[in-house]
């Protein structure tokens, strides 16, 4: 871990903390909520030995990167703008891209609006959902799953932060990371996240040191930065009207754990396996469902995930020109 370099890059009006290691074609790793560059610690070390340069930022709102206060600063366009600025400052024309959770959403959109900057994408957990022309995303979730659906509960500024604050941060992170319940997370206000059951013990893939690392960072930063991504979902919908109906034209491999909460949202399996995803992502080349694996697949089964990513990018490597 000491070999990982930590730098601060000025991009798109913010300071972005970036972890990087290795030399070769660049892979950009995008974490989700509530996560950090650290999610990719295993991949960073592995890919450095495999002849790639692995780069994992703390996205805007997280960890050691800046966190502007207002949700209006967290549209997809802002985050993609940060990443394009990052690539420009590194002098990288085209990258290999890996995304997880919110990072997967950002990755889909980077491919949609700047396909010229991405050679290939391995995306995990969260599929690309085409824009509904008449129904905003938060409104759609509310209609489908009710007011207690976690995305709806995250909307009101300050409200869920108050709920989170009632739980020790390390415990809260553990609750998020270790949940194996595949039902859509609905958390009534009376129960709150504080009311979620304490995990009996840490799984093998998450150590005390890991939990302390996350706990420290989120105690310092709070969760508002990360929550602002959810609060900007309807705004992002408005602003992405120009790409309504457009396909994503980048080669893609999609990986998800069969116990992932997201994979088990009603309709998702059919969408992935019966051609829905492929209709919107015509160059979707491989879909991998990892058995017995939950949401944080890159931490739960790091070597397998690394192998999947490596195998896919190696196919494109001979054509890849950007090397650092």
């Amino acid at each position, binding site marked *: 871990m000491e070999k990982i370099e930590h730098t601060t890059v000025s991009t798109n009006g913010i300071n972005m903390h970036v972890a990087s290691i290795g030399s070769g074609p660049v892979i950009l790793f995008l974490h989700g909520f509530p996560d950090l560059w650290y999610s990719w610690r295993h991949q960073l070390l592995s890919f450095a030995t495999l002849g790639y340069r692995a780069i994992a930022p703390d996205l805007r709102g997280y960890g050691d990167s800046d966190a502007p206060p207002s949700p209006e600063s967290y549209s997809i*366009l*802002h985050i993609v*703008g940060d990443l394009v600025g990052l690539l*420009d400052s590194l002098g990288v024309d085209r990258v290999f891209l890996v995304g997880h959770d919110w990072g997967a959403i950002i990755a889909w959109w980077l491919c949609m609006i700047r396909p010229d900057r991405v050679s290939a994408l391995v995306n995990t957990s969260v599929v690309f959902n085409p824009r509904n022309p008449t129904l905003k995303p938060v409104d759609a979730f509310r209609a489908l799953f009710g007011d207690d659906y976690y995305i709806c509960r995250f909307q009101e500024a300050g409200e869920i932060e108050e709920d989170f604050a009632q739980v020790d941060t390390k415990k809260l992170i553990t609750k998020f990371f270790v949940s194996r319940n595949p039902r859509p997370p609905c958390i009534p206000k009376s129960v709150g996240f504080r009311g979620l059951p304490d995990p009996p013990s840490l799984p093998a893939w998450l150590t005390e040191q890991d939990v302390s690392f996350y706990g420290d960072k989120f105690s310092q930063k709070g969760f508002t930065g990360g929550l602002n991504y959810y609060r900007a979902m309807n705004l992002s919908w408005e*602003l992405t009207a120009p790409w309504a109906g457009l396909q994503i034209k980048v080669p893609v491999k999609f990986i998800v754990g069969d116990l992932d909460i997201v994979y088990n949202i009603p309709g998702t399996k059919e969408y992935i396996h019966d051609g829905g995803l492929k209709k919107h992502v015509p160059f979707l080349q491989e879909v991998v469902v990892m058995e017995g694996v939950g949401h944080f697949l890159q931490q739960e089964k790091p070597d397998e995930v690394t192998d999947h990513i490596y195998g896919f990018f190696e196919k494109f490597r001979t054509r890849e020109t950007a090397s650092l």
Partner: protein
Amino acid sequence: MEGIDHRMVSVNGITLHVAEKGPKEGPVVLLLHGFPDLWYTWRHQITGLSSLGYRAVAPDLRGYGDSDSPESFSEYTCLNVVGDLISLLDTLFAGDVFLVGHDWGAIIGWHLCLFRPEKIKGFVCLSVPYKPRNPKVKPVQGFKAVFGDDYYICRFQEPGKIEGEIASDPRRFLRSIFTGRTLGPPILPKNDPFAENPKPDYESIELPKWFSKEDLDFYTSKFDKTGFTGGLNYYRAMDLNWELTAPWTGAKIQVPVKFMTGDFDMVYTTPGIKEYIHGGGFAADVPNLQEIVVIEDAGHFVNQEKPREVTAHINDFFTKLQNKNKSF
């Protein structure tokens, strides 16, 4: 003006008024007006292009004429307006289109080319060249630094202010806009905003040949109804637009482009612009810039001042592009 179809189309959460003429199977030409303008600016091109076999389509952009005007200036970014146009194209036509843009319509056109290049066969841009986004300088700040506080874009920023000053008399404001002959960056001094323009007994001053009383009546009737806030909101959203277009910092335009301007257009005669257009900077940012045409003895509204020439140039360019495609 006969034979022009007018319809209201539901797009991107609003309703757009669209004027259209030409054979249904003809190649679509999407014509985008600027400020303070309307579909009507394209009346000659609509007639000319349709008679040449094109299907000419000219909307009132959001904020103008018979189209909706959302309340907040934040709904007038290029993301919003291009969203309207993509929705319009997807609703009414299949495939890619030819594009013509003037003034703010040129800026929208550039963004349409950035966001959805595969939708645009070719772009004829009038008056306003492309400038890639500068990550270090916000647009309004940039204009203020170069041209001062009284530069028109700076004067347009504060909601309600310029409406009170000069836009309270739409006919007078429109007259000064369409007949103005001042070169260089438009400066509107706070105590005398009409400075170089028609004096108090302005109705007695003759209109130019290309702009009749009926034309002025038409514009006045529309802007009397809507006011200018819708159009001004485009300027008020410039900094927000800059914030939101970070993903395209420094990006080049890849679409085939023909650029045209009148030789005494106030944009063309703004310091630095001629050098940028003719000195290679413009071509570097728009690698597929194929032609630059400077039309003599014409100002900002070149499509109204020299309509036949402009229509011929448009047809010329689009025909060339179509033939290029056919040869494959």
